[in-house]
């Protein structure tokens, strides 16, 4: 194994003590040919050397390598570790710091501290602690040094029980707490925190419940790793709905917003939408926090939920997300279920998506009129396809499709529909309830085709003397008269019928026959 100091440790076969070899190399690199030199003497030689003559890399190899190798040879490592401990105790702190600093990899340094804390004598561990704290990322504060020294004194001078306890404290500090990996703070720390957490929180007598931490955070507006760990715990326990309940009840603070963003994940939204009944106030919080990321689970619910209220709710929320959802939902048009296609077409229209005509044209001949209607609605929005779509609607046999066409024509009347309208109102399969609307539309046209259609509905034929007769009172008659009065006041046949209408006793007929805007 090689670390960034370039030191390679390999146990050699044949009984050669690798730790002795490391020590011999170390001594040799310091100009000492005798491999049996004590730790104290070697430290003295190095301390006395001019700084330029010291070889921190060689010291690092010896320190890092010996501690690492000792794990491989626990049964025979004792004397070598004692020698190394002696060296560390007697070497100048700057010598140790310089050597430790030559290792750049934080993981290697952390592993070294853990091993050193276990393997070296307590005085050596303390020296390593002091040197490492200066050399690594986390400077050791003066109070911490004092505390270590204080505990170290207990470890070195007291009776066995207290000594063991003090040693435990020192070894724990050095092994686990000294070089704390820097972690990003705040909300972004969530994943890092979860990865870094060596063990899950286990609620007990002294470990507070996750919901208590979260409630505290929401009440104080505080965020941080503690919050995110508690949130992760509740999500893991399937208590996402409770989290949303907390957010709903919390004041609007940075903590509640951050929490809403954190828990508003596609998976959590999917879970919330899978409940029956769905808590749509919680869903709204999630959708509001997630934005477009909410589209996927909402589409899933729209497509797959067996609960009509859920589908409806998902639809309404998708409709608020805007045209950005178009690419996501358009793929669902491949679904063979009519209601899926209908809902997707309807959504595309409602969000104002820019849809290629070919997409909707695939469905204008669909067997289900609800799908046809939505496809037509999309085509009606497009100036290139509007006229065609309008004609298709009016020609359709389904009342809902016809109504969609007529309603559109009412707002965007074009002369192209007149021939079809004039023909359709005479056909027996044209729903009677649309005749009035159709006549109103024809009344806005100046086409003679429209005139003929209006005359047909206003007239009841002729008398024996060949005089025109006004049709009986009906909504169709009134609509036809209004159309004639608007555009055909001077047309002979129309004029005759209008005159007749103005002479009737029926006020509604008289009103319908009057020129728009004329006083009675």
């Amino acid at each position: 194994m090689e670390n960034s100091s370039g030191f390679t440790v390999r146990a050699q076969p044949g009984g050669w003590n690798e730790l002795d070899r490391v020590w011999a190399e170390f001594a040799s690199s310091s100009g000492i040919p005798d491999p049996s030199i004590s730790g104290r003497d070697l430290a003295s030689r190095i301390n006395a050397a001019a700084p330029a003559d010291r070889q921190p890399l060689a010291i690092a190899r010896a320190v890092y390598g010996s501690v690492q190798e000792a794990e491989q040879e626990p049964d025979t490592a004792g004397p070598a570790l004692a020698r190394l401990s002696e060296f560390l105790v007697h070497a100048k702190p700057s010598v140790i710091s310089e050597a430790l600093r030559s290792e750049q990899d934080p993981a290697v340094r952390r592993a070294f501290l853990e091993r050193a804390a276990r393997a070296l004598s307590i005085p050596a561990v303390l020296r390593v602690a002091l040197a490492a704290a200066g050399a690594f990322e986390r400077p050791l504060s003066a109070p911490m040094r004092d505390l270590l020294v204080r505990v170290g004194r207990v470890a070195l001078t007291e009776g066995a029980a207290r000594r063991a306890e003090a040693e435990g404290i020192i070894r724990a500090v050095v092994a686990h707490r000294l070089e704390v990996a820097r972690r990003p703070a705040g909300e972004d720390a969530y994943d890092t925190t979860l990865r870094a957490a060596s063990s899950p929180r286990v609620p007990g007598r002294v470990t507070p419940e996750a919901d208590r931490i979260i409630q505290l955070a929401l009440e104080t507006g505080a965020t941080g790793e503690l919050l995110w760990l508690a949130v992760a715990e509740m999500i893991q326990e399937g208590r996402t709905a409770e989290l949303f309940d907390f957010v709903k009840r919390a004041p609007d603070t940075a903590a509640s917003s951050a929490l809403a963003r954190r828990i508003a994940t596609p998976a959590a939204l999917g879970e919330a939408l899978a409940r029956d009944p769905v808590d749509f106030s919680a869903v709204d919080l999630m959708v509001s926090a997630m934005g477009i990321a909410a589209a996927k689970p909402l589409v899933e619910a729209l497509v797959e939920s067996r609960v009509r209220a859920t589908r409806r709710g998902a639809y309404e929320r998708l409709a608020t997300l805007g045209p950005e959802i178009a690419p996501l939902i358009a793929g669902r048009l491949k679904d063979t279920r009519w209601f899926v296609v209908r809902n997707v077409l309807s959504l595309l229209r409602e969000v104002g998506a820019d849809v290629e005509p070919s997409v909707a044209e695939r469905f204008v001949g669909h067997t289900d009129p609800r799908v046809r209607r939505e496809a037509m609605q999309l085509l009606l929005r497009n100036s290139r396809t509007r006229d065609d779509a309008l004609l298709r609607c009016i020609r359709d046999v389904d009342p809902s499709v016809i109504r969609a066409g007529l309603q559109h024509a009412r707002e965007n009347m074009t002369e192209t529909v007149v021939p079809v309208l004039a023909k359709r109102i005479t056909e027996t399969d044209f729903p009677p309830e649309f005749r009035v609307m159709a006549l109103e539309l024809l009344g806005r046209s100046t086409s003679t085709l429209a005139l003929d259609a209006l005359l047909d509905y206003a007239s009841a034929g002729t008398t024996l003397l060949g005089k025109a007769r006004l049709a009986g009172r009906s909504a169709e008659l009134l609509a036809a008269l209004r159309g004639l009065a608007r555009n055909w006041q001077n047309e002979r046949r129309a004029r005759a019928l209008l005159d007749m209408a103005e002479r009737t006793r029926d006020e509604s007929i008289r009103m319908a026959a009057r020129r728009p805007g004329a006083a009675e």
Partner: protein
Amino acid sequence: MTAQAQAHDAHDGAATNGHIAMTPELNAMLWVQQEARDGRPLPTLETSMVADALFMGMRPAAELGLPLLPLGDMEHYLGVHAINVATLAMGLATFLEFDEDAVRKIGMAALLHDIGMVRIPADLAAQPGQIDAADRERVKTHPVEGARIVMAASDPSLDLAAVVAYEHHIKMDGSGYPRVLFPRTGHYVSRLVQLCDIYHALRSPRPYRDAWPRPIIYSFLNERAGFEFHPALAAALTRMAQQLDPGD
């Protein structure tokens, strides 16, 4: 071990500064509080080390001791209070046979229970009993401030400390402060630290009053047990104090 011997042990290795013995633990705690006061990250390593050292100091022999620091001058009140409440809390937890890890965690929480006071002007923090209503309201913000400081420390081991800092003035019947949005009973350790906090405050002299005699403190705690304080904890604290902190 006698109380005097324990007190001597607490001062072992300490330098004196005016009327107060500056033990390494107190020094460290005052430094921790100053770091928080200056808006720097909470030094959790040092705080945990203080808890460890105090825990070690509580058991110089096989039996439990309560090496409480004398109060000294009010300048260091917050530090002494933190150290002594932590010692009392760890003592009570040991008395109640919590395991060692739990006792240390309780010690850490107790050390930080009043950390929010660093956000309160020092003159108010030093004598919260003799202030006007407006200042009292300011002092009452310290649990929220404390919870914020601890939560910001980004240390997963401080979950209990955050809770205790926040809840230690909420009474058994829900009165006290801060007012919570989500009704809940206080954490057991919050109740434990609350009792130690009150006990230490009452046994300490203030500029405007003497320390309360121990029997009066015991009566005070037990009369309010059940609606202000956790009854079993109040009884346990009384028993422990009678044995280990009998007073004059």
